[in-house]
């Protein structure tokens, strides 16, 4: 098997670090060879707060993946998240001196023009995702290349984030002598494997609720219309339980996994949960309704924040979703989460895992792995006709440079 058909996705998550090794197949398909993972340390809310410890964890996860797949990992695709990421939509306009056939350089130029916007000085562009082209007033031209025209316009969804924080992730990976192929917005990676092109065309909201962050992305007419990251996730639920029920964090986490439910406490059957004595922990009895209240409040708030953010930036995009809402990520396993989302967003909601990939069933049936698997699929789609460009070139261009045209 030639090494250029192997794709490695690395997600440095708040709860776990996950490395997915996949093999590229024909027709844009991928097959998972194996997954390496390790619990995270030194990472909070999706961002590295202790470089040394985090780097060590990434090393362990990479070694685990190498051992399981017998593949020597040299190049990785890295997912990025964090509350510092921001997005906006902007239109680039490129006027030609005289009517002529549109060339590749014109498409590049309109993308450059779209990035002529004020972002905070400490930020860099992460993605410039094409939404649609307009040629001489002819709207939504799918491919203007070789068409004749004079004024080329293009709408882009632009994602930017703090340079230093993005660099921290890069530095962590590069210190392990790994070459970074590219960094990808977490929700964009997840979307590659959990929704189909048909769903993207109809309109779908992808919500990836992880341990430290909640990433969301909304597709309409096949293009990304809005994206966002909330620095809130499963860790907050655990913390709320710990504060509310006066339990140590580890106990609260175990209670969330074993007994947690996001169901509205109004519908609760009530009852008591007994926590047994442990060394250093005095057992106690907990009202189930209290636990459900804590979790429900937090989960509901997360979906309300997403709804309000989309309404603020994209108008009634949620009302226009033809394919509803799709939830993934580790916290998606919380029972009752789809009902809460459905009540808040007034849409059909399903909890989904990676689809249309080959490999061990238990890997892609777990929503925790969606982002890392999505990275490999993204890599497969992007590298089909990619010209070789060094990472440094990409950093100087702000990452969006080479992928703008291809990200769908």
């Amino acid at each position, binding site marked *: 098997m030639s090494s250029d058909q192997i794709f490695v996705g690395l997600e440095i998550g708040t709860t776990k670090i996950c490395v997915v090794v996949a093999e590229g197949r024909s027709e844009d398909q991928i097959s998972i060879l194996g997954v390496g993972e390790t619990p995270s340390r030194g990472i*909070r*809310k999706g961002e590295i*707060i202790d470089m040394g410890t985090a780097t060590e964890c990434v090393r362990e996860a990479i070694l685990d993946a190498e051992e399981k797949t017998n593949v020597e990992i040299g190049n990785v695709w890295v997912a990025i998240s964090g*509350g510092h990421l921001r997005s906006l939509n902007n239109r680039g306009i490129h006027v030609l001196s005289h009517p002529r056939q549109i060339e590749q350089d014109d498409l590049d130029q309109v993308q450059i023009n779209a990035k002529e916007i004020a972002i905070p000085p400490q930020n860099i562009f992460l993605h410039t995702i094409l939404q649609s082209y307009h040629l001489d007033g002819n709207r939504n031209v799918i491919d203007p290349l070789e068409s004749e025209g004079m004024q080329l316009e293009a709408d882009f969804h632009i994602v930017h984030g703090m340079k230093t924080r993005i660099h921290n992730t890069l530095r962590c990976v590069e210190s392990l002598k790994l070459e970074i192929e590219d960094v990808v917005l977490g929700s964009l990676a997840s979307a590659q494997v959990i929704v189909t092109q048909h769903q993207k065309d109809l309109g779908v909201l992808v919500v990836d609720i992880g341990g430290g962050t909640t990433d969301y992305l909304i597709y309409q007419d096949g293009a990304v219309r809005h994206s966002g990251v*909330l*620095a*809130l996730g499963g*860790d*907050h639920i*655990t*913390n*709320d339980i*710990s*504060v*509310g*029920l*006066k*339990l140590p*964090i580890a106990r609260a986490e175990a209670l969330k996994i074993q007994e947690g439910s996001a169901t509205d406490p109004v519908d609760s059957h009530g009852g008591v949960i*007994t*926590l047994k*004595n442990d060394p250093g922990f*005095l*057992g*106690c*009895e*907990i*009202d189930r*309704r*209290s636990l459900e*209240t*804590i979790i429900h*409040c*937090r989960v*509901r*708030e997360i979906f309300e*924040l997403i709804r309000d953010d989309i309404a603020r930036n994209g108008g009634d995009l949620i009302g226009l979703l033809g394919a509803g809402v799709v939830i993934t990520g580790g916290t998606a396993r919380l029972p009752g989460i789809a009902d809460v989302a459905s009540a808040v967003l007034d849409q059909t909601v399903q909890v989904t895992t990676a689809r249309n990939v080959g490999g061990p069933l238990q890997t892609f049936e777990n929503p925790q792995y969606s982002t890392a698997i999505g990275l490999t699929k993204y890599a497969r789609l992007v590298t089909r006709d990619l010209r070789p460009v060094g990472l440094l070139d990409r950093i100087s261009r702000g990452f969006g440079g080479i992928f703008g045209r291809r990200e769908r």
Partner: protein
Amino acid sequence: MSAELSHRLIVGVGNAGVAVLDLLAMEEPGFKGFLAVNNDPESLAGTVVRDCLSVPAGDPADGFLAIDEEFGKAVAGASSVVLCGGLGGETASFLLPALAIHAKSNGITVAACVGMPFSFEGKRRTELAETALGKLHAVCDAVAFIGNERLSGGTPSTTAVGEAFALADRTLLSCTRALHGMFSTSGPVRITRADLKNVLGVPGAKILFGSGSASGSNRLHEALEEALSSPLLIQHGKTTPGSALLGVKTVLLLLHGPSDLSFAEVQTAVSGIERIAGDKCQIKTGVLATLPVGSPLTLSIIASSGAGTQIAKASEAPASEVLPQTITTQTPESSTSTTFTEGEVPQPIRKTAKPSTFSARQSSPSKQTQGTLDLDTYQRGRFDKSEPTIVAGEDLDVPTFLRKGIKLSPPRRS
């Protein structure tokens, strides 16, 4: 001269002081309490400040006598005066202490915010500035001096001259604005004059000052980050933002911003500083949420550390030496008819203040009457030491059920 003046006055002295006033006046066009004092007719002709006192050129002492009466009228009825300017020049070095004494003798609380010259400006300027600073310390309730040398990290040779002066001017402006803002705070979360005096009334102490401004959903964090990154808040030889605050006893924190400034943001700012300065640090917070919604939030931090010797010596000099010769004969007006609050004893000129009262106040700065902000209301748990997630002014790390005030049944120990 217009008789209508605000109760809080900002007086800009000399070219640097007038330049600061101009910038402040443009920021706050409605505010009437600006007074520009200078002997440079060109500077006064170009200023946007309405009330100006032109000092005749020549001997500054003669100049002061010429404007003495008018200045007295201008400050009459004011509750506080903030004097600002750059020390080192003949005019400002003489006029600033002289005006401070005059205002103080009228029973007004006086604070001074002054810039000290760079070393490359020459020894003569530095000496003049230090003498003037000593005099200011002797009369003013609070003195904030910006050591320009510290601003440029002690290596002015690598900094462009224009840039160094611009940074000095900006810092002087922010500091004057912060002092004025602190005087303006009222209500339950305010900074009292006693607080200001405790922090800025110690002669020779090094001033730690930082200010940051931001708007948007993460405004508090961004403003705090900018403030802590100020060169005056970074310890020499280190790069960690706010490192100079480690171990200081008292920090004055002013939050000046839009009316939707939330409790959570105040709390975040306080805990952010506490994290750096240590648990023993007392944070005196003042909130001025008077601007329209959408205006940027400005966060200012003032503290002081250590005590210099040279400047302390100057302020220990007998009062007759401290006072400019031309006005030693002035007698302060009745010090009982002042606007001091919280049992403060005015200290206009040492000659007339009761020495015992003065020394007692100096030696027991910890006697505070202000209540402290209750910060234990909310619990952030494991996120206590991490960067807060603020959306629409709400700290989302605090459990949702707590913020919504939902009561839970407590766990029963078996």
